[in-house]
């Protein structure tokens, strides 16, 4: 069994008959509606990607803010003068261990 079929047409299709299938007006309509559909699709895609980038920006900035805040607190805590001095010099119990 072949991959294709061969058929024989006794008569060639006439130009007049083919002419009957011509419908340029409907083709133009389809073209216009497909352009509109593509435009709507493009707008939705643009909106989606804009929303996605805004969301990503806020999410990243929030994470970055959190990351920036945490070491700052630690640094502040560590760099506060005199905090460890009491422990190092053991000033709580006047140098007694």
């Amino acid at each position, binding site marked *: 069994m072949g991959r294709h079929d061969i058929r024989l047409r006794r008569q060639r299709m006439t130009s007049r008959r083919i002419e009957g*299938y011509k419908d340029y007006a409907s083709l133009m309509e389809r073209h216009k509606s497909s352009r509109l559909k593509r435009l709507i699709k493009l707008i939705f895609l643009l909106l989606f990607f804009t929303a996605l980038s805004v969301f990503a920006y806020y999410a990243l900035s929030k994470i970055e803010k959190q990351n920036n805040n945490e070491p700052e607190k630690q640094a502040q805590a560590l760099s506060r003068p005199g905090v460890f001095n009491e422990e190092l010099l053991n000033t709580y119990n006047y140098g007694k261990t």
Partner: protein
Amino acid sequence: MNVEDYMDKTITLGTVSDANYMSEQELAEEQELIVRAKRDARAFGEVYNRYFERIFNFILRRTDDEAISDDLTSQTFLKAMQSLKKYEYRGVPFSAWLYRIAHNEVNKFYNKQKRKKVFSLEQEQLFEFIQPEEEAVFDEEKLAELMEVLKELPTEAVEVLELRFFEEKNFKEISYILNIGESGAKMRLYRAIDKLKERFKIKYND
């Protein structure tokens, strides 16, 4: 029927006419029309009127169904309209670009439908290229034998045969339409003719 029986028959493949080949001036005029159509969709109407019949016939030969051909022809021109701005002249007539879209649409249709491909050949046109040498006309039996031989050929070879002998395309256009190399198109055709030669005596002048 065995191979020896086929060897008795002689078929002559005539030369392909140059009727469809365009001159440099015609190509330039056509390109002007395409440039206009790119700017104004309404100018595409002229392109549509000029090529509708040829594309419809091409698709009908590949589907053997008028309703399907109508749909696919319409789809071909719609695709052409949508991507006309991307079209670039590649040394072949604009019709080759349309044929390429039509060929892809037909392939898409068969892949979707999971149907066996059909080649519906016009008897009248077939006789212009294939003639028995001994007798003036093909009788039914010989014609049926030829159909059987064509059925056994690879589909890709029949596609090239059809474009060469029924659409009268040159190898440059065939290679563009089928998206293969020119040498590949020639190889497919010559292999097909060689296969036909195994069973018939063929004279091919190209």
